[in-house]
């Protein structure tokens, strides 16, 4: 090894060491990126189930009118990586919805668009959720979107009991 190549090799070793440290931090130490509610209406939720037709509610001009029908009991299967729930945006509503299931400030499931006339009974568990079996006090966070897909001035939260198995 000549004297000129020695510093170069040392620099390369240092770069490789720093790369390995960054990789270790990314895997074991970094918090997963938070899942944020979408500002615009996403595409239709793949698990959405159509409901029966109903007469529309009266909607104030420039405002909104919705109905939400739900159970406050939620289950999570770690084996299947799914969230079991009942949440409906009946056809009498006038706004589309996006549902988030949140435990201790962490979003563990987020639906796609639920237009009026659709419900969900299952959602995929987000890969970022680190849960262990037990019962948790969580919440639904419901976002509303007008016909143009813009987020409404109002949103809703609903406390739920979540059983993880």
């Amino acid at each position, binding site marked *: 090894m000549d004297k000129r190549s020695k510093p170069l090799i040392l620099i390369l070793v240092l770069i490789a060491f720093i790369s390995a440290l960054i990789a270790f931090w990314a895997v074991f130490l970094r918090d997963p990126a938070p899942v944020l509610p979408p500002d615009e209406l996403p595409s239709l939720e793949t698990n959405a189930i159509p409901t029966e037709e109903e007469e529309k509610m009266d909607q104030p001009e420039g405002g*909104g*009118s919705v109905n939400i029908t*739900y*159970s406050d*009991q939620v289950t999570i299967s770690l084996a299947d990586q799914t969230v079991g729930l009942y949440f409906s945006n009946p056809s009498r509503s006038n706004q589309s919805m996006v549902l988030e299931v949140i435990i201790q400030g962490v979003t563990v499931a*987020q639906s796609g668009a639920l237009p009026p006339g659709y419900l969900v009974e299952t959602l995929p568990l987000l890969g970022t959720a680190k849960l262990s079996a037990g019962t948790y006090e969580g919440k639904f966070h419901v976002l509303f979107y007008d016909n143009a897909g813009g987020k409404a001035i109002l949103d809703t939260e*609903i406390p739920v009991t979540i059983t993880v198995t």
Partner: protein
Amino acid sequence: MKKLIAILLSLTFVLSVSVCAGTIMPGYSEQKTVTATYRATDAPVYSVDITWGSMVFVYAKKSAGLWDPETHTYSNAVTEGWQYPVDSTSGLAANEIKITNHSNAEIGYTVTFAPSSTLTRSDTSYTLEKDTDTIATAVGTSIDNAPYKIARLVLNGETPSESFDVGTLNVTISTQ
């Protein structure tokens, strides 16, 4: 020596790349096929209507009204302050949030308001009226006569500008 260092560097690089490939990157969520199904029980069924006004308010300047030369009097005098136009279809004022309970159980609600930065920086204040309450079960009532409550966002003081965002509202529905 050179060969040994080259081998070490190669190993470090390969390990770094393979470890990074298994990391969940920001904005990416792993999703799997859904198979579980929710089974309804005899637990309460919650069904709640939420209707909100336009939240577009009008600040009216004081006016004596229209002068009627026939009677030498004014009519339609305007008092200075915030006005909340009523929607003709729903009957709801622009500053109102109506919560209707169609559940077979009593519910509670809490309305909170996050003012916009324009409103926060101004001298205009706000109050929420009937922002938290309970609503009786719908059992024994008809659809058209379901129990409901109305909360109101009221502004106080002069308008900070001709047009501005008021803020955002949140309604928390709770079981009792």
